[in-house]
C-alpha cells in the first residue's frame, strides 16, 4: 500500500467532514490511520486531524487524494530521505538507517519508492537515476554508495492483517505446551496445500534431529508431494540422512530398532567419506550410491538445497559451503518468493534464516524444547506459529493430515 498524509482543519466534526473523508477513503478501497486528532472544545473552536491515507496503487491513491482535497484535505509536505556516501568499502556512513524485515518505503525527490528486498539489519542504498532503493549488507557496500541515514523520509508499513480469514497464524501469538496441536497441524496442512497450489514457495529449515527422531520418511513424502521448494540445513542433517540411507543408522543408532549399532560411531564418517569420494550428493544419486533419504529425494525432485557449514562439522560434505558470508549469500539468493518457512529442530540455523526473511513470510517453528521455540517466535514482526513437540510426531501428523486432504498427495511437482 502506498500512502500519503493529509491534514483536515476546520469545523470538521460538526460539518461531518471528518467522517465523510474517512468513508470516502474506505469506499475507494483504501485505508486510513488517524495519526493525530485535536477536537475544539468550544462550539466555535476548529478541529484538526492528521490522517495517513493508503491505497493499493499510486494511481488510486492520487485519485483519492485529489477527491479528498475537495473536502479541504491538505497534503503534508513529504520530506525527502537523507543520504550520505559510504566512506569505504564495507563501511556504512555514521547514523545509517538500519532496516527491519517489514515493507519499507523511502521518499526520494518527493515520491515514495519501495525498498527491496525487505530484509532486516541492512542499510539502504539509493540509486537516484534509476529511482531504486536496495537493502544492502556490509559486504555489499562500496565506497561512495549513497546510503540512507537518520530517520526522516522513511515509512515502515506493518503487515496488513487479513480480516477475511482467521488462519492459524492469526491467533497463534504465544507459545505453550498446552495447545490443541492436532487442530493447528490440520490448519497448517491446509495452508501448505494452498501454498503449493498457488504461487507461494515453502522453505524447510531442518536440523539433524529430523533424522535422529526417525522422521526421514515423512520429510521424503513431503518432498515427493511437492511441499518442499527449498531446503536449508547444515552439514549434520545431510550427513546423518546419508548415514541412515547407507547404513540404517544415525549417529550410530539404528533407526529401525533403536539400538546402538556395532562400531556405529564410525558410520557417519564412512558416509561422509563415500560422498566425498563420489564427488558430491548429486553424483552419489546419479551413480546409484545414494538411493533414499532426504537429500536423495531433493535431488530426484529438483528441490534446491543450501548446506551451510559450522565449526562443529566433520568432513564436511563437498556440497557444504564453509564460508559463513558465502552461505548467507547463497541463502539470500534463493529465498525470494518464499511464503512459508518450516523450521524444525535447529535453533541457530532457524535464527539465521529468520534474519533473511521479510515479515510477510509465515514461519513455523517446531522443537521439543520450549525455550528454543520461544526464542524463535519472539520476533514481534513475524506471523509465527510455534509448536513444542517431537519432530517425528509432528511430521507424521502433518503428512497424515495432508494425505486426508483431497488432491494433496499428487506427486507431480509444479515447476515454480
Amino acid at each position: 500500500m502506498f500512502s500519503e498524509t493529509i491534514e483536515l482543519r476546520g469545523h470538521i466534526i460538526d460539518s461531518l467532514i471528518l467522517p465523510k473523508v474517512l468513508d470516502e477513503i474506505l469506499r475507494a478501497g483504501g485505508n486510513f490511520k488517524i495519526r493525530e486528532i485535536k477536537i475544539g472544545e468550544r462550539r466555535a473552536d476548529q478541529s484538526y486531524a492528521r490522517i495517513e491515507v493508503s491505497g493499493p496503487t499510486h494511481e488510486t491513491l492520487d485519485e483519492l487524494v485529489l477527491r479528498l482535497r475537495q473536502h479541504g484535505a491538505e497534503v503534508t509536505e513529504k520530506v525527502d530521505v537523507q543520504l550520505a556516501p559510504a566512506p569505504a568499502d564495507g563501511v556504512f556512513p555514521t547514523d545509517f538507517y538500519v532496516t527491519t524485515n517489514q515493507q519499507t518505503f523511502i521518499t526520494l525527490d518527493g515520491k515514495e519508492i519501495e525498498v527491496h528486498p525487505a530484509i532486516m539489519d541492512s542499510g539502504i542504498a539509493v540509486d537516484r537515476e534509476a529511482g531504486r532503493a536496495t537493502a544492502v549488507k556490509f559486504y555489499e557496500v562500496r565506497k561512495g554508495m549513497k546510503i540512507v541515514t537518520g530517520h526522516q523520509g522513511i515509512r515502515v508499513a506493518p503487515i496488513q492483517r487479513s480480516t477475511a480469514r482467521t488462519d492459524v497464524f492469526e491467533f497463534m501469538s504465544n507459545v505453550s505446551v498446552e495447545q490443541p496441536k492436532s487442530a493447528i497441524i490440520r490448519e497448517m496442512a491446509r495452508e501448505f496445500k494452498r501454498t503449493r497450489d498457488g504461487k507461494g514457495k515453502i522453505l524447510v529449515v531442518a536440523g539433524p534431529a529430523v533424522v535422529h527422531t526417525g522422521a526421514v520418511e515423512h520429510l521424503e513424502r513431503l518432498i515427493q508431494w511437492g511441499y518442499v521448494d527449498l531446503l536449508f540445513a547444515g552439514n549434520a542433517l545431510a550427513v546423518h540422512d546419508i548415514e541412515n540411507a547407507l547404513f540404517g543408522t544415525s549417529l550410530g543408532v539404528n533407526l529401525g530398532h533403536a539400538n546402538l549399532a556395532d562400531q556405529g560411531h564410525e558410520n557417519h564418517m564412512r558416509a561422509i567419506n563415500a560422498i566425498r569420494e563420489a564427488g558430491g550428493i548429486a553424483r552419489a544419486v546419479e551413480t546409484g550410491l545414494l538411493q533414499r533419504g532426504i537429500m536423495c529425494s531433493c535431488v530426484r525432485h529438483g528441490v534446491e538445497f543450501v548446506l551451510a557449514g559450522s565449526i562443529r562439522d566433520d568432513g564436511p560434505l563437498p556440497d557444504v559451503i564453509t564460508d559463513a558470508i558465502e552461505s548467507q549469500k547463497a541463502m539470500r539468493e534463493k529465498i525470494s518468493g518464499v511464503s512459508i518457512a518450516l523450521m524444525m529442530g535447529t535453533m541457530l540455523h532457524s535464527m539465521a534464516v529468520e534474519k533473511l526473511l521479510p515479515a510477510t513470510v509465515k514461519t513455523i517453528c517446531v522443537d521439543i524444547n520450549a525455550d528454543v521455540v520461544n526464542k524463535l517466535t519472539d520476533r514481534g514482526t513475524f506471523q509465527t506459529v510455534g509448536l513444542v513437540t517431537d519432530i517425528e510426531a509432528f511430521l507424521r501428523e502433518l503428512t497424515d493430515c495432508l494425505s486426508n486432504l483431497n488432491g494433496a498427495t499428487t506427486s507431480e511437482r509444479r515447476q515454480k
Partner: protein
Amino acid sequence: MRELLLCPPDHYGIEYEINPWMSRARGADAALVQKQWKDLHVTLSKLDCKIELITPQPKLPDMVFTANAGLAVGKKFIPSNFRHKERAAEAPHFARWMEEQGYQVAWLPNDYYFEGEGDALFAGDALFCGYKFRSDINSHRAVAEMLGCLVISVELVDPRFYHLDTCFCPLPDGAAVWFPAAFDEYGQRAIREQVKDLVDVVPGEAMHFSCNAVVLDRDIVLPDGAPKLVTTLRDRGYRCHELPMTEFLKAGGACKCLTMFMPQRDSAME
C-alpha cells in the same frame, strides 16, 4: 432597520453560460427584466428595510446578483473571490463601494474561491457555507477564522443548485426552508443536526427557486410558483410576497440572489 444592497439591471443579460440555467440562445427579455427588478425594488422598499444601490457596470451582466458581492458581518466585509473569470471583475467594484460605506474590507487569499452571501448564510449561531460548484471549502475555514464563529460546510451536489441560497433559507424563528436533495448525505445530516425545524420544499417548487427568498422579519419576498411553500409559511405567521422572477431564473438567480444584507449579522456570535 435592515439594509439591502441591490444593483439595477441596466447591463443584465445572458452573455455567457456558467451554470445550467443560462442559455445565450434563449436570452432574457429586456423589458421584462426591468419590470421584474423594479417590482422587487418596490416590494422591498415598502417593507421594513433601507435599499442601497450600486452603479451597474458594462460587461458585468451578473453584477445584479449582489448576494455574491461578498459577506458583511458587523462592519467587516469579505469580498468574493469568484470562481469564474466572467464575474471576477465585479469584486473590486463591490469592495470599493463597501469601503466607501465605511466597511473594513478583508480579502481572503486569492486562491480560495468564495462567492459571498450566496454561499454563506447564518442560521442560529452557525454560519452555513456551501461548497463545490462555486465556493471552496478552504474559504470557509478562513471565514471562520476571520469571524470567530462555527462554520458548517455543506457539499452541494446538484449543479442546478450551485449556490447555497438556491436551496437553503434560514428563518428568524430558528427554522429553515430547504431542498434536501441539493445536499449530499453528510450535508443533510449536518443541517438536520444543527437546525431542528426544517421546512422541506418539493422539487417542483425548488426549481422555481422558492428557497431563494429575502426574509425581513415576518415578511418573505420570494419567486412565484411555490404555492405549497407559501401556504406553509403563511400558516407559520409569515406574510409572503410572491414575485415573477422568470428573467432572472434564466441566469440561475431570483429574489435573494439580487440582494445582499448590509450586514447579514451585526455580530457573528448571536
